């Protein structure tokens, strides 16, 4: 696991956890790993978030949602987008991975397995509907930048796979 410690003030944790990814509403931004730091300094909350992909249109919304949630708890806040260190799918928490699967998005495999399914055509991605590994990639790109399209050969369910990003 890439260890780049998050620096989150305990008092803010619950509020930030209540904010979800606008494209995957069941997933908290905290479980997504996009919040890198949140500190209180001089009556102002400073939050740093990092994008999953450069063009992720959700980042602006996430920034606004964070400010709204903090305002409800009477905090003034400033949200800044940071690029380094670059986000990786390793930062999605186990709870986040379960939320993705429950939502119908297969969670990212490790780097090597990911390469095997995206380039080698190996069947390692589990269908989110029936659990079968008899699945195939339909396209390397999916409905958003972070996903690829898959389909289950057994139950025919089409589903997204969250690509591994290192």
């Amino acid at each position, binding site marked *: 696991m890439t260890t780049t410690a998050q620096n989150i003030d305990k008092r803010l944790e619950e509020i930030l956890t209540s904010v979800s990814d606008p494209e995957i509403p069941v997933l908290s931004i905290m479980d997504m790993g996009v919040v890198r730091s949140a500190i209180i300094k001089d009556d102002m909350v400073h939050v740093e978030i990092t*994008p999953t*992909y*450069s*063009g992720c*249109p959700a980042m602006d919304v996430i920034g606004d949602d964070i400010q709204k949630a903090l305002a409800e708890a009477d905090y003034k806040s400033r949200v800044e987008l940071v690029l380094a*260190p670059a986000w990786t799918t390793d930062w999605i928490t186990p709870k986040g991975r379960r939320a993705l699967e429950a939502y119908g998005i297969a969670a990212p495999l490790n780097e090597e397995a990911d390469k095997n399914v995206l380039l080698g055509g190996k069947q390692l991605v589990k269908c989110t509907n029936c659990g079968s590994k008899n699945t195939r990639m339909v396209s390397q790109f*999916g*409905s958003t930048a972070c996903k690829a399209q898959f389909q289950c050969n057994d139950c025919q369910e089409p589903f997204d796979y969250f690509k591994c990003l290192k």
Partner: protein
Amino acid sequence: MKNENLYNYILGIADNNLILGQRLGELCGHGPSLETDIACTNISLDLLGQVRSYYQYASKLKGEETTEDSIAFLRKEREYVNVLLVEQPNTDFAYTIVRQFLFDIYHNLFLEELQKSHDITLTAIAKKSIKEANYHKRFSSDWVRRLGDGTPESNAKIQEAIDNLWTYTDELFHQTEADKAMVKEGIGVDVTLLKSKYYEIVNEVLTEATITVPDTKWFQKGGKNGIHTEHMGYLLNDMQFMQRTYPNMEW
């Protein structure tokens, strides 16, 4: 402006992404299949996302009333310094894929070096972007192989696109004044050093794709100095329409 060379240097990188992103965006709803349509627009989105990081940085350097939007939408044709390759029209899927392939190989080599820049903002953008650029390269190289080594018709189309776009490849390795200044300061990438590796990789993929590598020695240039092909005006017209018609509009 204090950092004029750095400002120009950033535009030299970012304008390529912007114009190629715009070209790919034109395919939204017009791709040859749903999957390739989504792929091209996804790549476009990545490139435009990268552009925002570059232009935000550039606008900070420039100060005054410059914003990422004014850099993107309110310059005149001569002020864009992208290479001619990226402004070439989509024509058909062979041209779209070959243009992408010729750019992606360069883009990856370039970002690999930019990661070592002494400028921490550029390093951060490069580290973020290279992951995406690498995925683009896989996609475009796969399609060049698949179509080149496909049917006689798909082979002929890829060959035609390579023959026509080849003349725009050499410009990727030309240095501007801003390039030279930034290389000296350890901030910029010396693109002349990427050239042999570039053609080595490109030739390898083309050979696998059973495509003949053109042997032309005559190359087009000008984009890096703001002298563009006839396609650029139409592209800008389309891209800038909203901001020019409704100044300062926001979504």
